């Protein structure tokens, strides 16, 4: 487990003493103090568009503290370059960068943004247990005013902004105020080996029927159809979502994924999706014993030539391309009985401005700078998928196919959220349930009932609905 920093936490505040057990607390010498700081108003302080200052150079000497999780090679370099460029453009600004791995950031951010020395800009995980709770606690600022001034509303498609949007009470995800902007995009599609698909005499499958025919052909040729390692649990959410994309309508998946009322896990389309997933398992389309195989060993095996397809996210681009070169290809999930293109995906972690920031205008200018057109070019050069301005003609090989897929997903409004965004417990539930469904210890009926009961109990309790 990653060591947790021991920086300042828990500011005390006077609360209400309770008669009986208060005595016990008194004995501890900590009477009438509740843990935690007052934070801000629910939903954070909004800056009106008319009050936004954009002239950073005129703001005097400012130190901007930024917490990000871009620790990997290309991304790290890209951020460093952008930070240096920002400071060069505005010599009055000093950026203090603190970069941590995703897990480390997730575990420490909670205490850092409630502390006295909270950073100005933080990369916050989109989900309910992170960004949602921060919004509710009034620890992040809504960015709508800035979005108006900097033109983010036009620049970033709605499906992308939705992934960093919450209502003020943090209860409704995907709507309400904008709380952050991300640099990179990601979709979960199909990686494939070009030579293997050629060898089978097949084109890229665009429908479920074609895809299933390709799986069967791959199996008959003696190859593993879909490389899949689900020991970590979360890849199962992606592979099940991939099947669901083909059978269930986008609107329904969005309602389920954002935990909004109006959808059902037990709908006919979801039943067919779950049954298809089981069929594929029983037809040996997935790696044998996938529940015991790790995610990394699985994609590494695919890169080594074991498997015709790999259902995974675009974040593997740099790693897979390094191993497979020209042979690597990528396409969106085939269109199935739902009749419309859907693809699970979203953005990297959004950059948000904390309530505690003393220079929100500078912070907003910084976020605008690192998501500008030039920044997007730097991101593409680093081998990643920029969230906007991804121009397929400017790159080649698998990266061009990834950019194309992202463009198509944007044009067709095909993006659907990760299913585990739905409720605070849905990550645990989905990982366990997909494992059980794939391992054969639960039926597709029990699987869907379990998900439905979590979904309905959450949506009925969640006031934001």
């Amino acid at each position, binding site marked *: 487990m990653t060591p947790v920093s021991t920086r300042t936490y828990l500011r005390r505040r006077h*609360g209400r003493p309770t008669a009986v057990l208060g005595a016990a607390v008194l004995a501890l010498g900590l009477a009438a103090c509740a843990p935690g*700081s007052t934070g801000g108003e629910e939903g954070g302080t909004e800056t009106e568009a008319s009050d936004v200052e954009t002239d950073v150079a005129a703001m005097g000497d400012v130190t901007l503290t930024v917490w990000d999780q871009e620790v990997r090679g290309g991304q790290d370099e890209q951020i460093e370059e952008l930070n240096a460029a920002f400071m060069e453009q505005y010599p009055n600004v000093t950026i203090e960068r603190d970069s941590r791995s995703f897990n480390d950031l997730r575990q420490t951010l909670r205490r850092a943004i409630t502390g006295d020395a909270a950073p100005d800009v933080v990369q916050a995980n989109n989900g309910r247990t992170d960004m949602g709770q921060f919004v509710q*606690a009034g620890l992040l600022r809504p960015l709508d005013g800035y979005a108006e001034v900097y033109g983010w509303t036009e620049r970033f498609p709605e499906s992308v902004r939705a992934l960093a949007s919450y209502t003020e009470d943090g209860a409704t995800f995907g709507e309400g105020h904008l709380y952050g902007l991300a640099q990179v995009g990601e979709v979960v599609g199909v990686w494939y080996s070009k030579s293997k698909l050629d060898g089978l005499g097949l084109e890229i499958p665009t429908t479920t029927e074609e895809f299933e025919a390709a799986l069967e052909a791959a199996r008959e040729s003696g190859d593993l159809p879909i490389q899949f390692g689900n020991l970590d*649990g979360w890849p199962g959410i992606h592979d099940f979502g991939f099947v669901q994309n083909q059978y269930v309508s986008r609107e329904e998946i969005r309602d389920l994924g954002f935990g909004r009322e109006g959808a059902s896990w037990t709908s006919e389309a979801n039943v067919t999706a779950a049954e298809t997933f089981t069929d594929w398992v029983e037809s040996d389309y997935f790696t*044998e014993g996938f*529940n*015991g195989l790790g995610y990394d060993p699985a994609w590494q095996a695919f890169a080594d030539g074991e498997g015709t397809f790999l259902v995974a996210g675009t974040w593997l681009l740099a790693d897979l391309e390094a191993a497979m070169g020209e042979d690597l290809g990528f396409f969106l999930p085939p269109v199935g009985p739902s009749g419309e293109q859907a693809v699970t995906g979203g953005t990297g972690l959004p950059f948000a401005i904390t309530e505690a920031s003393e220079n929100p205008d500078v912070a907003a200018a910084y976020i605008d700078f690192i998501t500008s057109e030039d920044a997007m070019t730097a991101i593409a050069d680093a081998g990643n998928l920029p969230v906007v301005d991804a121009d397929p003609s400017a790159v080649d090989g698998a990266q061009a196919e990834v950019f194309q897929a992202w463009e198509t997903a944007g044009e067709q409004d095909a993006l659907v959220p990760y299913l585990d965004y739905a409720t605070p417990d849905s990550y*645990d539930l989905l990982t366990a349930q997909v494992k059980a469904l794939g391992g054969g210890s639960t039926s597709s009926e029990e699987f869907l009932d379990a998900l439905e009961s979590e979904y309905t109990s959450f949506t009925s309790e969640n006031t934001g609905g």
Partner: protein
Amino acid sequence: MADTLSRARAGRRHGGPPGEPGRIAYLYLAPALVVFALFLLFPLLRSVWLSLYEWNGLTVGTWVGLDNYTAVLTDPALRRPFLNALLLIGFFSFVPVVLGLGLAGLMARNPLRGSGFFRTVLFLPQVVALVVVGVAWQDIFAPAGQLNGLLRWVGLDSWTRAWLGDPTFALVTVGVVGTWVGTGLCVVLFLAGLAKVPRELYEAARLDGARPVREFFAVGLPALRGEIAVALTLTVVAALRTFDLVYVMIGSTGQSTRVPSYEVYDRAMLKGEVGTGVTIALLLTAVILVATVLINRLAERAGS
């Protein structure tokens, strides 16, 4: 009055029996006491305090009294993790102690050439970081790993499975690793214990006609009472607070492999349920405390 008192005190200090700890002793105790209070007592009390609130780590907590305790004790989702911990005690504690007794008995009786080497090898798992241990065993238990390879090689194809992904076997595999880690510790402890048994006792037993097994139970085992208590304490504690092996080898999936420490981490660090997380941690601490006290009581009683 004050005068008399101070004279009385002074008299006591000078006139007391030699070696009686005076107030000066506290001066010597102070450094340890300060460290203890700062790093153990204070966090413990603070945890108790936090456990009385519903708090997400962000906003101001809400006083809920003992509600967290009621919630934790009645939460059906928490029963499995504690039962899992019991299963792990079997693998981490009882099996290594029994194996350790057997191995130590054999090794003490038949001094092998290079027994120092074997002892070192057996003890090695204790030295390696558990994260490394977990990663290495993950490879062995992988679907295409060494264990399944071995089973196929001997023709037991139907026994192969995705060990770590199988709800029935996943925790057992973690248990097996625990046995592997714990056995070396037990052997080394017991060998040290057996070494202090006077030779004469063995000779006497032999003269009485005891065979090797009888000899071990009559002479060796009673002498090892203290060591067994130590081994049980260490391994039971290790089993109850297991986190790293489960986290590394299996990750966060499924009720069938949840353990109490994982629940603490998940609730307090990831889900923003600090109050319940801390409450589980405190209950786990209490369970561990009771277990160690019980083990030591039992060991003492067996001796009297």
